[in-house]
């Protein structure tokens, strides 16, 4: 039992700090990294501690700076890059996906690219179409990248250290609404291996697969379902690539039912990959159609009047579980949005302490 409680953001901070301490070739760069706010606290004070040569800001030039990070790997460095929003890194897709992802392979394994790229996923007030996309499915589709999506402070620290120490490019997702959650975090160095999902709660009635912030929503749904007597086995993917599917397949073989929750949009999203994979591998065990709970295929609207109807809630997960259990007709059942007012001010905050907008 670990008694030490840290915020997710603090766990990230500690992981980076430990890696900077442990390996002189590690450095950290990104817009705002050394500024007084320090990327929502995750990089605060690190420049003061580790020096300007190892922790620094950069020009607004995400594509070139990714190339710079990659180039430095070729002479032995181990960079960590930080993007305050995933969208900023969309200018860097060539360097991330054509260069960093493929460099090791396309030169026959001669160079390695131990580059970790932190991507923050926005949610909050009016983050809107260009500050909120969770495009983990994109990166998972590029061979050569590892994709990591923790949901707890413990995993955040252990997986980030593992990512930084990994000799390959890793894209590390941090959902903004996770930064302030608390959880037990051991002191010092430890790693959580890339590739192993975590069984959050055991249950025999239905398997719920999620990752990153969606895991929290799944857990909330699971609590509610438990009250109804439905026991969900909730599995937190933790990493999309690499990914050992044994736990998921074993779970579905037990429950026969699958709901996948994704913080990205539906079509072409990673939930589809999980559904496809499970269906291919455990078809005989499935008792009902799997269901995806994901964002609709719509850009994120800015006004909360619409974003309140955009992000699925635990109620949606519950409704999906009910459907897969045959408790409601496939398309029927309660409208999970029922009773929500456009002006509602509880759905666009992660908790009461949130004062917006980022």
């Amino acid at each position, binding site marked *: 039992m670990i008694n030490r409680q840290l915020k997710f953001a603090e766990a990230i901070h500690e992981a980076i700090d430990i890696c900077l301490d442990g390996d002189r070739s590690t450095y950290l760069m990104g*817009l*705002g990294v050394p*500024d*007084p*706010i320090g990327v929502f606290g995750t990089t605060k004070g690190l420049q003061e501690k580790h020096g300007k040569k190892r922790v*620094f*800001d*950069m*020009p*607004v*030039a995400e*594509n*070139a700076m990714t190339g710079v990070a990659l180039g430095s790997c070729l002479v032995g460095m181990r960079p960590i890059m930080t993007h305050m929003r995933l*969208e*900023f890194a*969309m*200018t860097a897709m060539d360097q991330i996906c054509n260069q960093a992802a493929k460099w090791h392979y396309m030169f026959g394994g001669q160079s390695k690219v131990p580059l970790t790229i932190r991507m923050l996923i926005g949610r909050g*007030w*009016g*983050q*809107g*179409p*260009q*500050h909120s996309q969770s495009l983990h499915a994109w990166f998972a589709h590029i061979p050569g990248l590892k994709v990591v999506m923790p949901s707890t402070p413990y995993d955040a620290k252990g997986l980030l250290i593992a990512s930084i120490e990994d000799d390959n490019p890793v894209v590390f997702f941090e959902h903004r609404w996770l930064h302030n959650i608390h959880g037990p975090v051991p002191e010092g160095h430890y790693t959580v291996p890339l590739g192993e999902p975590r069984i959050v709660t055991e249950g025999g009635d239905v398997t719920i697969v999620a990752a990153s912030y969606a895991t929290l929503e799944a857990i909330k749904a699971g609590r509610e379902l438990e009250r109804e007597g439905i026991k969900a086995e909730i599995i937190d993917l933790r990493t999309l690539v690499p990914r050992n599917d044994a736990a998921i397949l074993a779970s579905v073989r037990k429950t026969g039912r699958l709901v996948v929750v994704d913080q990205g949009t539906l079509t072409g999203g990673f939930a589809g990959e999980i559904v496809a994979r499970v269906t291919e591998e455990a078809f005989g065990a499935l008792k009902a159609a799997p269901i995806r709970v994901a964002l*609709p*295929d*719509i850009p994120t*609207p*800015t*006004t*909360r*009047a*619409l974003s309140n*109807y*955009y992000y699925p809630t635990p109620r949606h997960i519950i409704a999906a579980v009910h459907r897969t259990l045959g408790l409601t007709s496939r398309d029927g059942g309660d409208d999970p*949005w029922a009773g929500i007012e*456009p*002006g509602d*001010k509880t759905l*666009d905050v992660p908790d009461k302490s949130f*004062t*917006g*907008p*980022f």
Partner: protein
Amino acid sequence: MPQESRLALYRSMLKIRRVEERIQALYPEGDMRCPTHFSIGQEAVAAGVCKNLRLEDHVISAHRSHAHYIGKGGNLRAMFAELYGKVDGCASGKGGSMHLIDLSVNFLGCVPIVGSTIPIGVGAAFGAMLQDHAAITVIFFGDAATETGVFHESVNFAAVHRLPVLFVCENNLYSVNTPLDVRQPGNRTIAELARGHGIETSQHDGQLVETVDAAVVDALAHIRNEGGPALLEFITYRWLEHCGPLGDLHLGYRTQAEFDSWATRCPLRLYRKVLEDNRLIDDAAHAAMDAKVAEEIDDAVAFARASPFPERSELSRHMFA
């Protein structure tokens, strides 16, 4: 400059300032739930540039766009409604402060990805040229945008095709909380950087609205007469935090002394003094002007508050044209 023009210049700055002060006052109520970037301290650039534009000329901007929207004559009611996320917002509530638009005055839009509207503005000028329109396109952006590759790609294309584009860089010395010297070399200005592309560029004091005005007059004449783009760099300073209605001196990334030296160079104060010295305005006239502006703002805020939220069915509307 004619007396009325001088007063109009001041009025434009005053309106920008007062609108932003009102947003500043209302924002803490927690009903404008979107990231909001203020131009307080930088009004002279928007006012000085927009004074010289015709209705048909295009303007496009980025995340810090209120001043440009107002300067170009964007609808105030629709702006406030947008900030409140209402259905009558200029983007139906879908955009918020970072996505203002008013096509009736050819304010084409703005987006918060740094640098991204620069090629889009160049494209508007290009499209106009393909259709033999005489419209000029003004693209507003900050100092950090000149670090993006897309800025250079855009300037190059505008130079090759000699497009009628006025690039306006508001160099307020910071990108978020990061000073210029860790982002750009100290031995060249942004005007010099852009001059490498073979276009007309110059750097000016962005606090003196008549200096801005004169620079713009020259640049537009160049664009019209010689054909081909120009870039103006204006040195200016943001008073408030990068995003949001508060001050941020407590953060320590800039000094009180630096702030003070800029605050004394408030573009409104400096220009009011000029107008007063020239007996174009006195306290009473100023108060009257201020009252009229306040009235317009009151009306816009009332309109915005009264406007309904978009209905749930609006979520999937506007997906495809």
